């Protein structure tokens, strides 16, 4: 959808005109009270559920939406009941206006000139999309990780437009360690010789090496030590003949399965994701901190929220640990807001929020059935 109005950004900059890619699932009811907005995290898109069909009507392989376990007909967020909206954020690289597109003022590809956008900017842009769709109030806003930050920000920026917020595996801000991981990823990209200060598009190249490494470090932080050990352990990709250890005694070959897996993930990611988008989105993560304007205190920061909340965290998630979700729960309790909190003992680390754990799915399903369902 095209938006012709200027979008003022938190930084003071603005975007003159922009497009937002979105998908919807289910049907908006007559009184427009069953809309659920899904906010995506770092590398996801507006394609949250369902599959794509090719021209012959056959299912495109691996085209499932990124939260297809959660959202769809009969699923925890049931699209037979709810009208679900997925939107690609500004600055991302799946169709919405971002660094890969041309700046209408200069006619050049934005590249590094794309303005820095924040969680609040995204929420503002999402609100304009809802305006355009004729939706005054959301039955629920929902997201995991960075998407959870957007859901939380919705309840603060537009408290009267959100009945429920479902915040999964998220945090009220990033810790220093978390920002540090983002910085390693950014440095990998920025120091790639093909980066060209972010204007690689003008040079007809892509900083794929940097992106691969960024993805590898990110991926490590999304898993738990246990899961990695269970999945890969110390397994070798192939046992070299000639030495009892099976090692090749190389320093640059892929020897361990985990190396092979990370390289595969990095390669795959660098084929489809834009480097400038990676920089922008990690920066948006770093900046999010609703407590900052309240002296670092989250309780007064969340006093504006009117929504009812469901928070979910995962015990083995060390990137967005349960302790961070509990901070949000505590601030909501201090404000006497309706809140439920589930801490799921899943082994998969941060990735658990995208996986199909019956306890996790069950609590989200129960929440939508008992509380969010329009009367």
């Amino acid at each position, binding site marked *: 959808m095209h938006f012709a109005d200027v979008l003022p950004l938190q930084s003071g900059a603005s975007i003159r005109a922009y497009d937002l890619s979105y998908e919807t699932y289910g049907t908006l009811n007559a009184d427009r009270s069953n809309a659920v907005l899904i906010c995506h995290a770092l590398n996801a898109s507006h394609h949250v559920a369902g599959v794509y069909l090719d021209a012959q009507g056959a299912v495109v392989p691996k085209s499932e939406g990124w939260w297809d376990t959660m959202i769809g007909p009969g699923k925890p967020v049931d699209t037979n009941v709810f009208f679900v909206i997925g939107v690609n954020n500004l600055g991302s690289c799946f169709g919405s206006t971002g660094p890969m597109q041309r700046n209408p003022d200069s006619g050049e590809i934005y590249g590094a000139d794309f303005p820095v956008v924040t969680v609040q900017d995204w929420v503002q842009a999402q609100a304009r999309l809802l305006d355009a769709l004729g939706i005054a109030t959301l039955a629920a806003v929902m997201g995991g990780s960075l998407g959870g930050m957007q859901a939380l920000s919705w309840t603060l920026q537009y408290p009267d437009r959100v009945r429920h917020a479902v915040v999964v595996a998220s945090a009220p801000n990033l810790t220093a360690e978390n920002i540090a991981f983002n910085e390693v990823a950014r440095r990998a990209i920025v120091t790639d010789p093909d980066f060209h200060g972010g204007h690689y598009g003008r040079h007809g190249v892509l900083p794929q090496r940097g992106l691969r490494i960024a993805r590898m470090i990110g991926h490590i932080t999304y898993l738990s030590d246990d899961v990695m050990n269970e999945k890969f352990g110390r397994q070798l990709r192939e046992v070299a003949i000639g030495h009892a250890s099976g090692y090749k005694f190389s320093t640059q070959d892929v020897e361990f399965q985990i190396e092979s897996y990370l390289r595969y993930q990095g390669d795959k990611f660098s084929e489809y994701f834009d480097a400038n988008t990676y920089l922008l989105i990690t920066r948006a993560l770093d900046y999010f901190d609703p407590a900052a304007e309240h002296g670092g205190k989250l309780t007064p920061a969340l006093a504006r929220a009117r929504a009812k909340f469901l928070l979910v965290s995962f015990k083995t998630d060390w990137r967005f640990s349960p302790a961070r979700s509990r901070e949000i*729960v505590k601030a909501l309790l201090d404000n006497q807001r309706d809140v*439920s*909190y*589930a*801490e799921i*003992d899943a082994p998969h680390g941060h990735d658990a929020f995208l996986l199909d754990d019956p*306890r996790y799915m069950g609590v989200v399903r129960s929440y939508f*059935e*008992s509380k969010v369902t329009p009367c």
Partner: protein
Amino acid sequence: MLKTAPRLSADQRVIARLVPPGARVLDLGCGDGALLDHLIRERGCTGYGVEIDDANIQACVARGVNVIQLNLDEGLAMFGDASFDVVLQIDTLQHLRNAEVMLRETARVGRIGIVAFPNFGHWPNRLAVLRGRMPVTKVLPYQWYDTPNIRVGTLRDFAALALKNRLHILDAFGLQDGREVRLWPNARASRAVFKFQHG
């Protein structure tokens, strides 16, 4: 939301009547949320349950009752001083490693605390011990080697613990099959109930 009123045990109904109408309630170890649901619907209360068990969390959410998944042995740091009118600990204390700390925490967080637990002083229990065996009863249904009840005490034991922690006991009685027992409750009731506040 479940449209039918929750079914409460006779003991739970007695405990529900101890909670003032309209109170802000924290129910520690709230189980499937039936009592809290009842207090919200029938007595106009608001509040939250606290549970550790996944199935109970889902049961509470399915009822539309606010519930926080926490291990009570980690304390109540999430809850502010006197932030609730009533804090309930119904059949919870006997499972806690830090039962005394939690008792103090209950008094800190709530203006009133209400605690109910199996009374080991009930005469069939005494009789069993007199015969040289640990009791197995309706209220204490486990064998000694697999019981989740790691704290077994009597009504008088609790009164002593409350005194030690300078809690002011507002009411104390026994519960037997849904009836209040006020005469010799330590011997005549399978469950002990205390209502107390900060001294």
